[in-house]
């Protein structure tokens, strides 16, 4: 058991990262309800593994590893399709209307959801979550160079989609994106529970 002081601070820190877990989960799987289920699952797993958390290290990074692994496992079980809920982000503009017209956060999110999961998570961690390449590499359990390459490719793909206006308009949970995601998962990932540290 953790000492009671450590247990209190664990709970406080875990509570503090919930909004970040929700943001990461939403970016990964698109649908708010499924994302929140994933966060609940993550909290349960983190709680059960709390003795493996080293006080003083990043709670956000530690829980992101758990969330990521839970997501990959659920993807394999086909629980998630890369569906997108239009309700909220649809109305938020990314940039003021310019020559090429406004772009909605929803468009950006749909574009993001078409990326292979490894590139999507890398871009989410670095480009949205503000993690360094080194931190993102630890979360994804891969080399720093691999993360840099994934982020670079993800950015290039998004930039091309945006420039060409090739963003899927609706319901990106289409067969193409899903099949691409499952194909990549089947050949490349091997999720495991995080070890402390």
């Amino acid at each position, binding site marked *: 058991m953790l000492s009671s002081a450590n247990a209190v601070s664990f709970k406080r820190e875990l509570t503090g990262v919930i909004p970040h877990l929700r*943001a990461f989960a939403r*970016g990964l799987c698109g649908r708010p309800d499924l994302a929140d289920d994933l966060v609940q699952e993550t*909290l349960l797993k983190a*709680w059960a593994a709390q003795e493996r958390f080293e006080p003083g290290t990043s709670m956000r990074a530690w829980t992101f590893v758990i969330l990521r692994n839970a997501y990959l496992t659920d993807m394999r079980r086909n629980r998630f399709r890369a569906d997108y809920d239009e309700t909220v982000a649809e109305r938020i503009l990314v940039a003021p209307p310019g020559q090429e017209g406004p772009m909605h956060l929803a468009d950006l999110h749909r574009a993001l959801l078409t990326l292979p999961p490894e590139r999507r998570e890398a871009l989410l961690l670095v480009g*949205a979550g503000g993690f360094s390449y080194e931190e993102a590499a630890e979360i994804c359990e891969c080399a720093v160079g691999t993360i840099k390459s994934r982020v670079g490719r993800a950015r290039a793909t998004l930039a091309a989609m945006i420039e060409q206006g090739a963003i899927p308009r609706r319901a990106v949970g289409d067969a193409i994106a899903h099949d691409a995601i499952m194909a990549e998962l089947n050949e490349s990932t091997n999720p495991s529970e995080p070890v402390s540290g």
Partner: protein
Amino acid sequence: MTNEKKTKDKQMKDIGMERNERRRQPSPDWASGLRRLYDSVVDEPLPDAFSKLLDDLDSAGD
């Protein structure tokens, strides 16, 4: 020029090119959108279910 120096010069040049490369790529509008996408969720009010879950786990452990 020794080989060692050549290698070093080459490394310095590579670093310089990398910097220039970065400068040539201004952060596009959509890049800040990624951050906003993330922050917009972080800023949402937190459903009670989450703190309730942790409270339940906490009291189950007592």
